């Protein structure tokens, strides 16, 4: 087999050096009844590269891709164009097959990238500092809640109804084991965000308020007002950004008073990938640095006085603090952070702005076209690149009908809130700089036909 370099002669020589009769003899500590006598029954034997590729290719061909269909899905994962150089660079072996940079002398490539990434995320989110990534936006969100409970020594969190339901469910799962109390406001398919309800729910036991920006229906909450209300009660504001491209056009949450900003970096450099691997972003105020979860890269000098970078503040982490660590996270999302960072370097502030303008403008054009269809109502007053429609029929059925016509027309809110019959007629529609006028025409025509 091509990935196993040892030849029989090698094995024989090595066994002689070791003084063992056979490779099987090296497994002497395994109880005999647990040793399999041969390869596991029913599982196929090895296969050539050509055969494996053909098998996987056939599975790939069964899926309808965003490249092959007019595409309007969002709801926490967004399709943007990733320049070819990004994917090319992350496949360099020195990035792809490198390890966590625990030996900094021979990992300055990874470490400098992480330092640049942390700075980019901190600036994008309007915060003092950021970490070197988490698994994804949803786990970054619960880590932020956990940090807020540590910092405030309170154990209650208020979650806006505009928070992605998967994020709320993840937070609820973790809270159950931490013994935290979550006040989860239900999503409402109305034009306004639930800012007032969120603010009213804050009390003296509240560690933090969690608000998504833009929210799951694409609306834009008033973070400054919520921040003031939270701070008045000694609580923190955790802002959640599932679409960081939005920050090319709307203000950064940190600048509006958010104490912690978390998010999903998948939009930049990473791609859709059927839901993973994605990229958790975590940024906060300087004063919380020693309570932050995740790896941190810091600047220092070497023995010759030259600038270099190292992982630092490691005593927060599991390999040192063990049960008192700020998180149990070890492996994070390094290669995705690299892809994000390269894409953002290619964009710069001006490119990000243009990308955001295009994404937004396509949403404006789409909403205009769809809003003219009889029975279809655009719910939002405003949006970045995603908005909600109210349809005269269950959105799930409409999306299935669109798929049958080769169109990926958006995400029915019922997919995220299956227990809410009152939301069954809501469709989430997202666009980006990849959305072409022909796509909008195709969606509009098909929707008209389906709803006629």
């Amino acid at each position: 087999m091509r990935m196993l370099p040892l030849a029989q002669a090698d094995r024989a020589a090595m066994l002689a050096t070791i003084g063992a009769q056979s490779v099987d003899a090296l497994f002497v500590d395994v109880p005999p009844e647990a040793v399999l006598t041969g390869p596991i029954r029913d599982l196929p034997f090895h296969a050539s590269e050509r055969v494996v590729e053909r098998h996987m290719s056939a599975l790939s061909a069964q899926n309808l891709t965003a490249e092959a269909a007019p595409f309007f899905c969002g709801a926490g994962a967004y399709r943007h164009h990733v320049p070819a150089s990004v994917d090319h660079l992350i496949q360099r072996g020195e990035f792809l097959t490198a390890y966590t940079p625990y030996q900094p002398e021979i990992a300055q490539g990874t470490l400098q990238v992480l330092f640049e990434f942390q700075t980019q995320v901190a600036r994008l989110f309007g915060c003092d500092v950021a970490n070197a990534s988490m698994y994804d936006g949803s786990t970054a969100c619960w880590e932020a809640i956990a940090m807020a409970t540590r910092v405030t020594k309170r154990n209650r969190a208020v979650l806006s109804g505009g928070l992605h339901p998967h994020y709320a469910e993840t937070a609820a799962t973790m809270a159950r084991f931490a013994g935290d109390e979550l006040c989860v406001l239900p999503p409402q398919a109305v034009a306004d965000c639930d800012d007032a309800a969120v603010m009213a729910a804050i009390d003296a036991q509240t560690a933090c308020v969690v608000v998504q920006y833009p929210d799951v229906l694409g609306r834009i909450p008033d973070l400054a007002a919520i921040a003031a209300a939270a701070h008045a009660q000694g609580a923190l504001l955790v802002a959640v950004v599932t679409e960081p491209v939005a920050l090319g056009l709307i203000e950064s949450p940190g600048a509006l008073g958010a104490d912690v900003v978390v998010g999903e970096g998948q939009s930049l450099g990473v791609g859709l990938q059927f839901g993973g691997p994605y990229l958790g972003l975590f940024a906060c105020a300087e004063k919380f640095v020693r309570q932050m979860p995740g790896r941190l890269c810091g600047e220092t000098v070497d023995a010759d006085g030259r600038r270099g970078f190292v992982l630092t503040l490691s005593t927060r982490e599991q390999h040192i603090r063990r049960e008192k660590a700020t998180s149990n996270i070890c492996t994070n999302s390094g290669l995705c952070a690299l892809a994000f960072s390269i894409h953002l370097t290619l964009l710069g502030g001006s490119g990000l702005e243009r990308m955001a303008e295009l994404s937004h403008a396509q949403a404006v054009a789409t909403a205009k076209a769809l809003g003219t269809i009889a029975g279809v109502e655009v719910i939002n007053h405003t949006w970045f690149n995603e908005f909600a429609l109210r349809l005269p029929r269950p959105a799930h059925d409409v999306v299935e009908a669109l798929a049958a016509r080769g169109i990926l027309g958006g995400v029915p809110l019922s997919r995220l809130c299956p227990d809410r019959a009152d939301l069954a007629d809501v469709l989430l529609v997202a666009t980006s700089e990849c959305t072409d006028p022909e796509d909008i025409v195709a969606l509009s025509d098909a929707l008209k036909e389906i709803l006629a």
Partner: protein
Amino acid sequence: MNDFNPAGWRPSLGSVGDTPPRGTATGNRALDLEEPLIFEIGRTDRCGVDFDDGPLEMLPSLPRRAGRVDLPGLSEPETVRHYTRLSRQNYAIDLGLFPLGSCTMKHNPRLNEKVARMPGFAAVHPLQPQSTVQGALAVIAELADWLVQLTGMSAVAMTPKAGAHGELCGLMAIHAALEARGEAQTRRVILVPESAHGTNPATAAFAGFAVASIPAGADGRVDLAALLARLGPDVAGVMITNPNTCGLFERDMKAIADAVHAAGGYVYCDGANFNAIVGRVRPGDLGVDAMHINLHKTFSTPHGGGGPGSGPVVLSAALAPYAPRPHVVRDGDGLRLVEAAADLPDAFGRMCAFHGQMGMFTRALTYILTHGADGLAQVSGDAVLNANYLLAQLRDVLDAPFAQTGPCMHEALFSDSGFAAGFSTLDLAKGLIDEGFHPMTVYFPLVVHGAMLIEPTETESKAALDQFIVAMRSLAERAKAGDPDLHAVPRHAPRRRLDETLAARKPRLVWRG
């Protein structure tokens, strides 16, 4: 105070300022190129992406930000150069042996990368209609089936995003099972061997358990008597790594599992070292109730400089009902993701958004299909053979505390016993850098002083191992003789030893100009 730094790891800068000047005007030396930060060379108004020009219709109601985000941009050639130069400052598996114990730094096949990028996997959205992603669901189901068969378990939770996340999943499933039995309030303690990886007690604490540490015996394995003595009605279960962090197979694994079950608890197995036994031993046969598998270790998905990983958790019949949402199930002719809480009332909840690390599933499945059941058995055989070869070739020059107990598994453990006064494992490790290798895992596990844990993996040739042995024998002699130059190494890497004390005392985590 409690134990001062039991592992004995004291970072030291070594000898400073004795490197000769670089001798060029630029500070570069041929292919050894310095590279500034993007903040030092980029500008906010420079852009390496071509967008459509022209006016756009925006919503007047959009609360537009006052100014652009202050992020530097570079043209495409500058970007490629920046990151290519940075990449050349990294060691990688593609360059050489990466002997990190418990990390399984095996070759990352490039077919994995090609398959992961097939549009049907890379360009599909997690919330598309399920009829449009049957091929993606088939990948998840096929991989899940392999993992269940290889481990002899009943079911597998596919969504955890890494090993530590998988550990959390396993402990939450145990908690859910105890809750169903009405014992979640009384069984609050998890037993963890003192040699365990730090994620184990950290995870147990996060899942709401208290941790009781079980000592290792003189043979490097869990002290069975101590563990049995600690079992009782307050114990929810045990977290055990097998093979363990000393590179040894826990001979009493079945006895431990039987005792824990008899006492009403569950057995969580940390599967980080599965590479030693894949295709030869099934953890299910040893009584395991839950085990995470690191796809980025045993199943070759790339380490990427620190992730992403993937940590699916195989579950016994006792724990399978509690597996987190979503599940992939067969539905007539096709496959379906079951996501709603109402449809999975026993599932303990959701670990994260969407369905798991699909990009890692395609890579891991590609690897598994390539090797097959016969190839995987050979993987573990060669991995264990390679580690024992290293052990045999080094135990006369380095102290191997458990070598006399029998063969090791896929990794060999050494200590700093015999080093000259003032010379540490850190010095030897830094010396390996100049010899052209990444250091082994150092100062872990904590049960051995100055631990050096070496895992070659099965993708190393005998020639590569022999070269590594040459380097290690030389360094061992230098450490025992007290060669002062070992305090100055590395000399030939892009950087000398870095001041970690300064980085921790005065953290500078972002560029401030």
